[in-house]
């Protein structure tokens, strides 16, 4: 299943909640304010690094660009809207919002 998180990891525990449920290898997609989790150096970085050990983690490029995030934590795959559509086609969507 594809778990999407659209809230900042420092003002919401949605990412943590998603990770408690997501099975190993289930993809996690950060979008909207969720992309703040992709920014290196934030307090939430350890959570994301640990998620990357068992999940593919994606971040939506246009949402990164909007927020001035030009670098992401190593291992996160940046995708565009076409990539988002591909993920949705391949998996059942579980939105955490």
């Amino acid at each position, binding site marked *: 299943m594809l778990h999407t998180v659209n*809230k*900042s990891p*420092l003002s919401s525990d949605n990412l943590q909640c998603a990770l408690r449920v997501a099975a190993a290898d289930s993809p996690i997609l950060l979008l909207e*304010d969720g992309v703040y989790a992709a920014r290196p*150096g934030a307090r939430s970085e350890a959570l994301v690094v640990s998620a990357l050990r068992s999940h593919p983690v994606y971040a939506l490029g*246009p949402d990164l*660009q*909007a927020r001035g995030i030009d670098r992401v934590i190593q291992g996160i795959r940046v995708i565009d809207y076409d990539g988002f559509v591909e993920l949705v086609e391949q998996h059942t969507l579980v939105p955490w919002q």
Partner: protein
Amino acid sequence: MLMRKAPYGSVYPAEGFRAMMGVAVFELPLCVIFLDDGVYTLVKGQDPSALEMKPLGAGFPTLPDVGIKEFYVHDQSLAERGLTAADLVMQARVVSGTEIEKILAGCAAVLPF
């Protein structure tokens, strides 16, 4: 005015900016405090063109021209996001939580955005 939300994901920061312009029209004294995810509103390099939105950070440096000159940013909110004052689009005084409460105590009203 307390700015606590990240830009683009909700309408709060944009509405806060609109309210600041309104306060400026009436020439009322105003301090603007950025804390928690609100500090992201001032981060350099925002480009929401792909979302068909206007870059919010670009508006704040113009506020001193309309008479709003007191800007504060919470030190801990910056630090826990891996940010420093150099990452921001404008100069704002970096202050502690205790200092923020003192600033708020000197205000007639607190507007949360």
